[in-house]
């Protein structure tokens, strides 16, 4: 149990909308050790953020956890009351959101918003909290911290605000930092700076990070493990090398094919994944990716593939791998 910092087992979560039940997460399992970086990739609506938010107990109405276990640092999240959860949020687990322009409250100063979380989770008084806030701003690379503490969010640039968000997230030295597309709303040079800062702070503070993104470049450079999500399922999970050099799922292969490469010839076109994501209100019976998969077989449309494992950490859910195993098994006999 204590082996993993985060251990999510077979999490199922649905949103009960007026149109019907949207099955946002189906049998999602994630393990993460202390100090590790896990990347969750997938397209919009694949359940990346929902997984992370549910770990913080922040599932938005009308979402409901239907099954599974969520262990974090010795706590069993799904059994905790909101009051108990509040002690963990912002303290042991922190989160950085996608849009720094709107994630800070416009009517309070930066200092107020940083010290708020410090005063909430520690017994520092105002003066000590302010000193800590200043220290945090220095840590995330903001110059003139004394001046910044008195400024309002609208007086800072996007990159600076994201640094402030990181400072807030790190205020209580969390064990786990969830980064929900932290660079999507920033321009490219600032993106690189923010990612660099996060990695630097990870080494300094020794926290684990869950990096949610749809940018494969980001995960390749930052993460030790990657979970590829599609239609509320983890379709492939493995080390960064596994995913990039030995992808086993057709969706992962498609994703990697669609990234521009340095050795791509001048007029060569990128190969996109055809089609649109599945409708989670009426998910197909078989593999959710089957309708878009160019290697789909009859069985793919009928039945959900079982998990096939390759080594300790690399596993996927795809019938093609089962086929290979069948053939391997048959030739041995």
């Amino acid at each position, binding site marked *: 149990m204590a082996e993993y910092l985060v251990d999510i087992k077979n999490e199922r979560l649905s949103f009960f909308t007026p149109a019907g039940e949207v099955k946002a997460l189906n049998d999602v399992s994630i393990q993460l050790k202390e100090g590790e970086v896990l990347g969750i990739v997938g397209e919009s609506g694949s359940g990346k953020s929902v997984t992370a938010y549910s770990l913080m107990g922040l599932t938005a109405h009308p979402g409901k956890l239907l099954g599974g276990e969520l262990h974090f640092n010795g706590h069993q999240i799904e059994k905790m009351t909101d009051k108990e959860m*509040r*002690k963990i*949020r912002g303290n042991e687990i922190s989160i950085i959101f996608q849009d720094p322009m*709107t994630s800070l*409250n*416009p*009517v309070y100063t930066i200092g107020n918003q940083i010290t*708020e979380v410090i005063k909430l989770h520690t017994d520092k008084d105002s003066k000590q909290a302010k000193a800590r806030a200043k220290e945090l701003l220095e840590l995330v690379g903001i110059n003139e911290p004394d001046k910044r503490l008195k400024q309002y969010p609208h007086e800072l640039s996007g990159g600076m605000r994201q640094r402030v*968000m990181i400072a807030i997230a790190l205020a209580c030295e969390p064990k786990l930092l969830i980064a929900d597309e932290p660079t999507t709303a920033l321009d490219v040079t600032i993106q690189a700076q923010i990612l660099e800062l996060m990695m630097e702070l990870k080494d300094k503070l020794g926290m684990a990070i869950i990096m949610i993104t749809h940018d494969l470049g980001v995960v390749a450079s930052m993460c030790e493990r990657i979970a590829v999500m599609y239609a509320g399922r983890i379709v492939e999970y493995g080390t960064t090398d596994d995913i990039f050099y030995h992808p086993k799922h057709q969706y992962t292969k498609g994703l990697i094919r669609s990234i521009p490469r340095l050795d791509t010839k001048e007029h060569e076109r990128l190969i996109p994944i055809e089609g649109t994501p599945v409708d989670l209100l009426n998910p197909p019976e078989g593999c959710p990716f089957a309708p878009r998969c160019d290697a789909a077989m009859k069985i793919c449309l009928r039945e959900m593939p079982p998990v096939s494992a390759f080594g300790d950490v690399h596993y996927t859910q795809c019938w093609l791998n089962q086929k290979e195993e069948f053939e391997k098994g048959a030739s041995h006999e």
Partner: protein
Amino acid sequence: MAKYIVKRIILAIVTIWAVATLTFFLMNLVPGGPFLSEKAISPQAQAALEAKYGLDKPMFQRYLNYVTSAAHGDFGDSLKQRGRTVMSIITMKFPVSARVGGLSVLVSLTLGIPLGCIAALKRGKVTDSVISVVATCGIAVPSFVICTVMMYFFGVKLGVLPTMGLETAKHYIMPVTALSFYPTAYIMRLMRSSMLDVLGQDYMRTARAKGLAGGKILFKHALRNAILPVVTYVGPMLAYTITGSFVVEKIFVIPGLGGEFIKAINGRDYTLIMGTTIFLATLVIVMNVIVDIIYKIVDPRIKLK
């Protein structure tokens, strides 16, 4: 800030002058005059009265005279209430209306803001529907209906509340309730919609992710952002309400400024009409400046120029 206030004062003077000018000419275009309704008045006596108050002069001459004396702080004598200046009437009647009106604004705020918040937090539930229906009724039902219904039940049927005058605290209950109905409903609706807007903002999610408790999130992070539209509404509303409502004052026989104003118009009491109009205009302008300053305090993004 000082520059802003100076600018606003200059603007205010211009606005008040424009309001006064417009009122003066419109008022004089209405047929009739202050002394026509008096019984058994000889043409000579009427001419003498008009000469005494300067009404025999051409309209433009009268306008110039009025503006000059008003600029010196002299708003003249009432034409109908002999021997009393416009100023003395306003200073006597205004406090009465202001007490009733001020109380009703207080009631509307203390009821409207929390009810609006509750409706937003319980969105789509029974509580929300009940509050919304009550708010719609409050906006739709005119005050004279509310006044008469209340008078009938509490004054006549049950006999628990006095129906006229303002002698005791009990006397205030019905007029204040009647006056607060509309603003309470309006504030409730404003508060509900702006609160719903704020609750969906990203910084509310940040506040939850920090581990803050529900009450702290609501009072610190949501309320301050959501209250701005209410501040905008309450400023001018306060000005109108404390200057008195004609309907409510008439029904409950309250000697306030609202009734006085209508009486002045009906009696063509030119100086009193001018005085009360300028008084109301000044009050509205002052309230707007106060609203702007409160705005600046509540939301630091707003720059006063």
